[in-house]
């Protein structure tokens, strides 16, 4: 089964959504992320949506749910790379991504998360 890969950078999990997700893929991603937050003791989740040209309330709900679960597990969620036309559409749609900060790109997203990334240091 297809799965969206989750990368770990120190205490941050990075997910890049590059495909038009159908229900199953979205559910599996939510579950995978929750598991990984616990397993890796992650403090932050970066969701990269720079490849998404359409974000509807289904995806919005997935992101909000993920952020809510992350919060329960003491991790923060940041969405990065929102395309301008997507941002304009989301405002008009009235979609609020509750509990989710946004940032321009992965680098700025990591600054927002402010948990530090350590490679090989303990």
């Amino acid at each position: 089964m297809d799965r969206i890969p989750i990368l770990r950078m120190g205490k941050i999990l990075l997910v890049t959504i590059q495909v038009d997700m159908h229900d199953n893929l979205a559910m599996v991603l939510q579950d995978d992320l929750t598991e990984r937050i616990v397993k890796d003791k992650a403090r932050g989740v970066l969701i990269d949506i720079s490849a998404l040209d359409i974000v509807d309330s289904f995806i919005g709900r997935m992101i909000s749910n993920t952020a809510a679960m992350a919060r329960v597990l003491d991790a923060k969620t940041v969405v990065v790379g929102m395309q301008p036309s997507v941002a304009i559409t989301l405002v008009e749609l009235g979609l609020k991504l509750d509990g989710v900060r946004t940032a321009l790109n992965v680098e700025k997203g990591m600054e927002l998360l402010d948990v530090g990334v350590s490679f090989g240091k303990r």
Partner: protein
Amino acid sequence: MDDETGHVMPLKTGEDVVRLRQALRERVLAIKLSLVDQTKFVTAASELARNVLDYGGGGEAHLHMVERDNKRGITVVFIDQGPGIADVEQALSDGFTSGGGMGLGLGGAKRLSDEFHIETAVGQGTKITITKWKAF
């Protein structure tokens, strides 16, 4: 002059919604809608398609390329034989939800489209038509 039934696509699974988005992407590109208009319309259609799935018990979408007064556009008709909507005004106002979702579908889809028509009655299913025109 537009074709009678247009291109009919089933809306019974999540994958059907993805397929519909794909089909629409091609068409909005073909009539050269601006990027923002493309995004708005395909998003509106995605919302309505999900409604057919989640509240309508499944249904179908009819895609038409249309023309009027020297402008070109695209129309999508969403049809289901579900329970119908009792209070359309309430359904169109944001915050309405019967299914625990964000409840933005109808109001949002209307704002994102140039034209929006709804025919519905309790026990008689729902038919929603949205259109986006290519502005010159």
